[in-house]
Structures are given as C-alpha cells and as structure tokens.
C-alpha cells in the first residue's frame, strides 16, 4: 500500500499543471472557476489547444490519438484538468461517441469521424433519453425503419445537452419493434442538418439554455451511419456508459470549488470578523473535505485495481463514485451559496441603468451562486440517477 505518487508521476503531474496554466486562456479558466456560462467558442478553443498537444483524447486507442497511459496517469490528468478549471473536453465527443466509434465503428467511420471528433470540428450531442424513456431508457420509441438502403427516423429525443451547437447527434433508435425491449435498439449517427430535424430549446431553472428537445420527422439517414450491427445498440450504449469510470466523480472540480469557497469565506465579512472565523462554517467545510478525501482514495483504489479487474464480475465502483461524487459536487455549490448568503438573492441584469455608477453592495461573484446551486441538482439526476445507481448496487452487486 502506497499513497504517494512515484517521482515520474509527480513530474508528469507538474508538466500538466504548467501546461494547463500556461496554455489554456486564463479568461476561460476563470469562467469555469466561477461556475459561469461557457460560450461554444470557449469549449472549442480549449479542446483544440488540448488536441494540438495530443491531450484531448488520452482515453482513446493509441492508433486514434490516445495515450498509452497507466490508470494512475489518467487519473492525474483528469484531476489536474479539473483543478486548473480547464473546461473538460466535450464529453459527448471524447468519452461517449469517440470510444464507441473506435471500438465498434467501420474503418470509414473511424476515418471520417475520429480526427474531426477529437478536434471538435464536429460537435456531437447525445440522443438517448426521450420524454417517456428516462431511467427506463430501453423503453425508447424513436424508430428507424429501413427503406431503400436508408433509415427513416421519426420520434423525439429529450434533454439533448448543447444540441443547439451540435453538428451531429448519436442516437439510440428502435429498429425492431417486435423484439424484446433492449434487443431492437440500434446506434445511429445522424447529421443535424438533415431535413426533418427540429431543435427546440429547453430553459433550465437557472435560466440557462443547455438542454433541448430534438424532433425527427421522417429523417433520412444513410445506412452506412449505423454503428456496428443492427439491433446491437444497447450493448454499445452500455459500453459507452461504463467507459468513463474515473472522471465521473469530478473530484477535481469539487476540490476547486471548495478551495474557492474557502478563499471567498476569508474575504467575506461576518459578525466581528470574517466568515472564515466562524467555527460552524469551518466545521462544515471540514466535513466536505473529509468526504472528498474518502472519495478520492476510493477513486484511487478503483484506478489502481483496474489492472487486475475481472470485467465480467459486477462491480459497484462506478455507482459508488457517481453517488458520492454528485453529492459532493452539490455540497460544494451549497457551500458557495452559504458564503454568498443574502447577497446571492439578487439576479442583476448585466446592463445597469443609465448613469448608475454606485459600487455594488453585493460582491460581483455572488449572483452566480444560486444559479450554480440550482443547476447542479441535475448531477444526481442524469447519467443514471442516484436512485438507479443504488438499484444497481443492490441488485447487481448485493444480489438483493
């Protein structure tokens, strides 16, 4: 048992630290640190810088731009990226569709899509969920009927994150309506410019536009856009969802938020002194720090054990990381809300009235605290809700 990194791993970490701080524009990292809205351009810029350095897709096969890193290196990479408040490479590209195409796609698909996906020349979105198929994803109804060498797709996808920016969407569609639920599903790549696709924005409670509904009205999709075999889509989706085991907990992000809350508490007046002088507040911070450390070591154990893992055995690791990781992310947003306190109540419009030049009563960062808290309720809902994760542990692992 050894917790410390080797000297090589430390050098690897320090190189990454330097790279992230020096190469990713500070303005973009500041937005991430403050939990503010990122423009499409910010995400593209950042991913292209990573990609130029060969760092956008380390989890891919080496032949397609991946890195032959040890699990520990991978872990350090994710961790440092989050701590430096670098926007994560677009999840849909890097952790979802990229690995699926690399593993199950045809040679043509690999050539056509992988380099462009790595460089974010193609922006992907994920078309899995539907209004009637959330936790029960396999009940999805969007259908793709084969006709004259094409698929004709009709139906509706819901919750399509950043679909408004997307060039392509990867979808689960029903290709066999007779087969049992999971059996009749295929994995289809669809150009968002195809006639018959409509994207409708869905505004979230924090006022942001990050999700959409996507409607398909007899959309023609060339048969060559099918990934792998017809009716095997569920297997590819399972592969996709199991793929990113160690990034899921977002420990680096929570650490960065917690560190920020501590700094802000030191700058925030409360009573006779500063909020940081308040032992009740510090105790709560300490509680979250203890939880984070426990999760961090849990994650390291998962990473270290990946070497000798029998992939057929049920493993609760992903579910543990998801449940605890999302709870801690939410706890850090609650902490920031607490620091902002009453100054989090106003939601100032950005334009000030003519002639208003009074310094603000509330600190400039405080108006982002409540929207961030509201928005982060999502992390225990999506990606398999925390209830579904508990079901997985109870059923698949505990045999209950």
């Amino acid at each position, binding site marked *: 048992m050894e917790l410390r990194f080797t000297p090589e791993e430390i050098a690897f970490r320090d190189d990454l630290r330097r790279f992230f701080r020096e190469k990713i524009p500070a303005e973009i990292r500041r937005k991430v640190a403050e939990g503010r809205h990122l423009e499409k351009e910010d995400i593209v810029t950042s991913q292209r810088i990573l990609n130029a350095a060969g760092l956008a897709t380390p989890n891919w096969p080496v032949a397609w731009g991946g890195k032959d890193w040890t699990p520990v290196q991978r872990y350090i990479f994710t961790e440092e990226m989050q701590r430096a408040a670098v926007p994560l490479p677009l999840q849909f590209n890097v952790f979802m569709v990229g690995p699926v195409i690399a593993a199950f796609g045809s040679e043509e698909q690999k050539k056509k899509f992988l380099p462009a996906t790595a460089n974010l020349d193609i922006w992907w979105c994920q078309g899995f969920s539907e209004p009637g198929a*959330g936790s029960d994803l396999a009940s999805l109804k969007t259908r793709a009927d084969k006709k004259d060498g094409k698929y004709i797709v009709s139906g509706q996808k819901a919750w399509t994150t950043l679909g408004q920016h997307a060039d392509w969407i990867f979808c689960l569609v029903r290709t066999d309506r007779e087969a049992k639920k999971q059996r009749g599903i295929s994995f289809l790549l669809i150009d968002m410019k195809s006639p018959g696709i409509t994207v409708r924005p869905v505004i979230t409670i924090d006022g942001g536009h990050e999700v959409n509904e996507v409607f398909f009205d007899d959309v023609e999709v060339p048969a060559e856009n099918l990934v792998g075999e017809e009716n095997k889509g569920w297997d590819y989706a399972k592969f996709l969802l199991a793929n990113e085991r160690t990034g899921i907990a977002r420990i680096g992000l929570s650490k960065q938020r917690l560190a920020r809350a501590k700094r802000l508490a030191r700058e925030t007046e409360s009573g*006779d002194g500063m909020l940081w002088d308040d032992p009740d507040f510090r105790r709560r911070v300490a509680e979250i720090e203890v939880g984070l450390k426990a999760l961090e070591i849990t994650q390291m154990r998962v990473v270290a054990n990946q070497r000798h893992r029998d992939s057929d055995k049920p493993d609760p690791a992903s579910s543990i990381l998801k449940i605890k990781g999302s709870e801690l992310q939410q706890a850090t947003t609650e902490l920031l809300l607490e620091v902002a*306190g*009453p100054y989090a109540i106003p939601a100032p419009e950005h334009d000030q009235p003519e002639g208003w030049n009074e310094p*603000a009563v509330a600190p400039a960062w405080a108006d982002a605290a*409540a929207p961030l808290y509201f928005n982060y309720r999502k992390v225990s809902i999506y990606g398999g*809700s925390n209830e579904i994760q508990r079901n997985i542990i109870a059923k698949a692992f505990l045999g209950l």
Partner: protein
Amino acid sequence: MDFDLTEEQRLLKESIDRFVADNARDPGAHGAAPDDKALWSSIAELGLLAIPFSEEEGGIGGGPVETMIVMEALGRGLINAPYLPTVVLGGGFLRLGGSEAQRQEFIPQIVDGSLTMAFAQLEKQSRYDLHDVTTNAKRDGDSYVLDGRKGVVLGGDTADLLVVTARTSGARRDEKGITLFLVDGNAEGVSRRGMPSQDGQRVAEISFDNVRVPAGRVLGAVDGGLPLATHVVDVALAALCADSLGAMEELHRLTVDYLKTRQQFGVAIGSFQALQHRAADMLVAVEQARSMAMYAAMMAEESDAAERRPAIAAAKAQVNRSARSVGQEAVQLHGGIAMTWEYKAGHYFKRLTTAELMFGDTDHHLRAVMEAGGLVEEV
C-alpha cells in the same frame, strides 16, 4: 391549547384560497406577463392590506394568525406582490413604532393600496446582522441628512416609502445609536437600481446621497431603533415562515401527484418503495415546518424580546431546514422535468431557497437559539 382557526379566520382562508387559485403564478407558462398593478388592487379589494391594522385606523384588527393565512396562500400560489415589505414590514413599523401622526398619514394609504413600502437595512458588510449599520444620519437643524448604501431591499425599486436604518451615534456594530427613518422613495439624493431576485421577485440597491429627512420622519426613538427593528423583523420572519410553508405544501403535493402519474419500467414510479419513503420524509419535514410556522405566528407579537427572539429564531431554523430538504427532494423525485423553467416545481424550489437567505440563514438562527440559552429548560 387550540390550533383551530376561528370562524372569521376560516372565512378569510376560504376567500384568499379562492383568490390564490385564480391568481396563482405559473412562471413557465407562455403568455403575457402578469399585471402587478391589477394584482395589487385586487389584493386591496379583498381587504388583505387592512389585515394587521386596528379598526380605528381603517384596518380589520387581525393578528399574526391572519397574516400567516395570507402568506401561506401567497407562497402556495407563488404570488409575487410586495405584501411582505409593505404590509408586514412597513405596516409593522408603523403599527409597533409609528407616532400618531405617522400612522394617520400612512396606514390608510397602505390599506387602500396607494402606498407601497420597503425596508432598507442590509449593507455591504452587514450580512444578517441588523445592528451592523454604517449608513450615517447627521442632525442638521430640524432635519437629518442620510448617507450610505443599502442592498437586497425587497420591493425597494418601486416602494413609495422606505424605512431605513441609519447610525446616529456609536460604532458600526453597536446596538445603540441606530435610528429608523421614513424616507420618501423619490426624495432628492435617493437613487435606486432595481433587479429581479433569484425567484422572480423584485429587489433593489439603494444609495442615499445627502438625503434630507425632516425630524418628524424619525420612526421611534433616536438612537433606539434596534429593538423596534428586531421586533418588526421577527413579525416578518413569522410571515416568511408561512410563505415557505405554503410553497412546501404545494411542492409536496405536486411531487406526490407526479409520483402517481409518471410511468417508468411499466409502472408508476410512486410504486418504488425507495421513492415512497422519500415522499413520506418530505411530509414529515412539511409538518415540522407547519408546527414551527404556527409557533412563530403565536409568538410574533410578544413584546418581551427574551421570550420572542428564541422562538422566532427556532421557527426560521426549522423552516429553513425543511425548505432545503423538501426543495431538493422534490426536484430529485421528479427527475429531469423539475430542472426545467416550464415546469412549476423548480420555481417553488427557488422561492424556498431565496426565503432561506432572507433575514438569516439556518446557522444565524441556530446561533440565536443557542445564545438565548436554548429552548429546553434544564431539570
């Protein structure tokens, strides 16, 4: 011991419940923005603005229980109207501390709906402490001159009349030396920047730059404004507890309804025991909040601060706790739909969160309970 409403209170509740059913706000619905002026006039017509004032002053002589009935209904209907700043806070200041002349001048205008008020108290450094005041008031002949800045003033962008805490003597955090002023919202030297709050109400930053206030507009005793302000804020806290209670009840109802109708895996999700227990816990939290909102209503007019303060603080601490868990659980049990602006649940969650941060968070109030020696006598 009696937790029942009187016959009059029951009638009031029925009429306001009907009103709220007709005027409930649905922020996610498309269509024209609600007409705030018309809403305020109908609230006036219903007689709700007259509730806490004595009959001689044109009121109906109601107490905190009547106020609770109104606020609970406003919370349940997500209704945004400056009832708390005008009737509860502004009216509270006039009732509990106004001179004869001030009451005669302003209360009838509140009752007929022509005057709105706001309480300008919070400052850059004050956080939740009412006595932390740097806004300065200097005597000059037969008036005072006010200088300073206030923030997060609920209803402050359009209020006709402001109650302002200012320092007439002492240091920043001294309990003595605070004086309350009635300041015309449009007086020379008052500038305001209005903005929405996170839950769609209105708040303002207000700056006072050499604002001249006649000595006749001092509310209560010079240098002795804090006890009055504390009492009025306690009355407002009781009202806020009721608003949150109303919001929680409705949010819980929405959630239970959704559990019964949403189907996944071929069954209503409410058939999963994991979710049933959570909905049951939500009910426990709502009922704990209801009890404490009632407790607050029964204690709000107690003039002995040593009795009243820990009771009100305890109520707000409990209601905050319940609000946090009911809000979060409601969103979680709904799943993604509660994350959308179009659906109502998220707006209740935001109203509850905003109310939590008004006039003291949970820690602030737990500390007040602690400093008062707790609630349970040692035997």
